[in-house]
């Protein structure tokens, strides 16, 4: 009894500092009868949220009144939506990108216009269509999943059939499977970049650059974030059959070495079982601080983990690389935990982040949650940036670090490894090495720690496990201890 009194007294004096003190998650009730396998989320200019669901419904949610209304129905597995205006949405569904318009103002879409269907369908279940996202110039991007040899194809397919694309675990026997497509403002759909397996997340960073996530599997030793540029090949071979000028061969007959030389590597790898199993949508924190201290950073969802990933970008000689760190890991408040299955993310005008969840026959969850930064809760102690230096890394934190913890060598444990690029499914961590930290420097504002490491090598992941760094005389605890930097290019 005395012990527990003492304990609670201690807790009052030294409250535990967790991410749930800064962010609150709540579950958004969905209407009865709705199977909330969420395929897309987007906010309308008037503040309502559009959401689309596996069984073909598109619904509008008013966060003020908490009322849901049906907008459209009967779509085939819609997996993405963007609002054009208060009466018009763009939705991607299996067969096409569709413009839904409420032309008569009765609140229901009556026009279902095919914006583009210029890609093939074999009928294989894994041929999902993702997107759309729109850049500043008005180009729209969608991505097309490859098919899975977990099932076959239909007798009738849409589009040209190419048996050379039918080989392998994930295959592209109809046009542009495994591609990111660009729809220009004049309505032309262009094959934009290829080499994707299951590109379930598209988004732009603060500079407007296009990024796409892809899922661990054959040819992907681990899940990845790619910076996508026109004409490039990102590593999963089957989609090469649809590349203009590609010879009439099964891409799998090319040597790994030549495929490796053709591909553009990921900007950031998400180490499997640590960071991600199945990464989803990418969103830019454009809330100007309403969502906390991470303005202009990218967040990425995952199907299997009850956390998001936060991207810490770096650039070395024009090579985009950088680190990822979990966000809101296994957290929750008032008895509500963040669920897994975070397939879609969208920032609301009030700066809160809506999470659209699905399972879709895999691991995951159903429903919608909302993650909100608690105004006035202060700034959590977390890593803000990780930048490569000629002989190590600079870690910048959200707060000045208590000097004793910052200078403690045992608080920085590095391992490095790589994932094999090969046809097999996934990859173990290869050539795992401990990397000792030889010296530490602390900036004058105590926010940046400069670590010197022995023998940095390119094309490896540097996985850093941080110890108990603290701030504000021990009152602030470090929120996340694991950060993984993808080192593609060394600094000269």
């Amino acid at each position: 009894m005395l012990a527990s009194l003492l304990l609670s007294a201690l807790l009052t004096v030294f409250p535990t500092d967790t991410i749930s003190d800064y962010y609150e998650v709540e579950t958004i009730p969905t209407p009865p009868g709705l199977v909330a396998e969420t395929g897309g989320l987007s906010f309308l200019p008037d503040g309502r949220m559009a959401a689309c669901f596996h069984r073909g419904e598109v619904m509008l949610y008013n966060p003020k009144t908490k009322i849901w209304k049906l907008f459209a129905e009967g779509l085939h597995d819609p997996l993405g939506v963007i609002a054009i205006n208060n009466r018009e949405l763009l939705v991607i569904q299996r067969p096409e990108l569709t413009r839904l318009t409420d032309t008569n103002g009765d609140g229901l879409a009556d026009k279902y216009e095919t914006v583009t269907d210029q890609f093939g369908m074999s009928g294989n279940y894994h041929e999902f269509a993702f997107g759309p996202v729109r850049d500043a110039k008005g180009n729209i991007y969608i991505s097309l999943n490859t098919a899975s040899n977990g099932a076959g194809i239909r007798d009738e397919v849409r589009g040209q059939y190419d048996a050379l694309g039918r080989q392998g675990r994930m295959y592209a026997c109809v046009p542009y499977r495994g591609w990111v497509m660009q729809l220009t403002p004049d309505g032309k759909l262009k094959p934009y970049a290829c080499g994707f397996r299951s590109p379930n997340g598209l988004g732009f960073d603060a500079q407007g650059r296009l990024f796409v996530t892809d899922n661990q599997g054959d040819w992907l030793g681990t899940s990845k974030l790619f910076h996508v540029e026109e004409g490039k090949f990102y590593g999963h071979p089957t989609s090469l059959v649809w590349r203009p000028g590609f010879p009439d061969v099964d891409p799998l007959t090319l040597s790994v070495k030549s495929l490796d030389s053709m591909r553009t590597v990921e900007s950031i790898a998400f180490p499997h079982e640590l960071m991600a199993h199945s990464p989803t949508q990418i969103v830019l924190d454009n809330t100007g601080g309403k969502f906390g201290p991470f303005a202009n950073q990218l967040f990425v969802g995952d199907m299997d983990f009850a956390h998001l990933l936060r991207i810490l970008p770096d650039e070395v000689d024009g090579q985009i690389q950088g680190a990822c760190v979990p966000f809101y890991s296994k957290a929750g408040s008032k008895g509500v935990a963040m669920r897994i299955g975070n397939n879609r993310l969208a920032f609301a005008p009030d700066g809160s982040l809506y999470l659209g969840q699905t399972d879709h026959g895999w691991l995951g969850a159903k429903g919608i949650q909302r993650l909100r930064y608690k105004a006035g809760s202060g700034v959590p102690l977390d890593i803000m940036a990780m930048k490569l230096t000629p002989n190590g890394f600079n870690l910048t934190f959200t707060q000045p670090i208590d000097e004793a913890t910052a200078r403690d060598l045992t608080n920085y444990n590095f391992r490095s490894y790589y994932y094999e690029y090969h046809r097999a499914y996934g990859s173990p961590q290869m050539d795992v090495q401990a990397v000792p930290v030889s010296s530490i420097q602390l900036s004058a504002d105590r926010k940046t720690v400069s670590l010197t490491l022995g023998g940095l090598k390119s094309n490896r992941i540097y996985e850093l496990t941080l110890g108990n760094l603290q701030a504000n005389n021990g009152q602030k605890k470090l929120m996340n201890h694991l950060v993984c930097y993808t080192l593609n290019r060394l600094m000269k």
Partner: protein
Amino acid sequence: MSKLLLIVSLLLSTLPTHAQRDTLITITTSAGLQFDQKRLVIKPNSRLRLIFRNKDDMAHNLVVTRPNSRLRVVEFALALGNKGPAQHHVPIIDDVLAHTVSVEPGNIDSLVVTLPEGAYPFVCTYPGHGSVMYGIIYATNEPKRLPPLNDDLNIPNPDRIAEASHQHHQPANHPYALTLPAVYRTFMPDCGPAAIAVGLPGSEGGQSYVFDAGQCRLRYAWSGGFVDNAEQWDGKGQRLTKIVGEIYYRDTGGFPWKIGSGTQQAPQFKGYQLVNRYPEFRYSINGVEIRELIKPLSTGRGLVRTFAFSPTKQAITLITTAQPGIRLRPSIGQLKNGEVRLPAGTRQFTLTMSK
């Protein structure tokens, strides 16, 4: 050598791993134009040898059809007229998967068929028998999921028919009650993968049709219900949506419009506009935009297809493929050799299709 071995093992690994399964079932007749067994359950892809022993006092056959195609096969058999006996009353259409010959009383015949997962009607297609003498073969790994015998709409049960017409309301699949007309874009059988199923209001479960958005054309129509999406929605979305009812019409032809006399481009699907919940499809070919609105006949089975054309100087020709038991009535012009040439300047045209 090791390379060769690798190739051989790769080849082997692509072959189906399960062994061929053989199933032997003997089926006979019982009183009142009935098969003695009305529901057969087998494993998918097993090789079914079905022996038909006719103990009745009249001749019968046994025809295995594609899913939901029993009535269509029966109608085609009827349409054979006096050619029927020579071909054992079995129409030569894709919907027939296997059949016996005419089996005289006391005789025996057999058929062999391999069926992927699905529900396959079997029926006697002798004139007048098809509406009562039938049953169903379920090729399934999950026999526990089959409906109880009394609720199985695939087997004859006169007591249930009156009641069945009230049961076509969908269970609560959505946060609203499904209202007909209704549209589902989904994977449908016997259609390209960009299929649009449309359920229309009407008595006795109404009528439904499938429009192929890939080919821009009506593929088939059925009566007695709409669709069952349960398996398509379950899991990852590989399995097809099921038809509820009986297919009475299939368009075995191609795209129905010829614009001008030159090369015909592939039609391009443009979407649809809901008009009182009926989808009006839009597609274009050779520079002409066509709108198509499909409504049910006010009585009986059939569809009224209303087309509108954007202005063009090119000749417009409707091309149809005759389907036994189906009558086509053009609002303008005459059906000659399966074609209707629309007069120059035609902007609207209606094709009434009736059973």
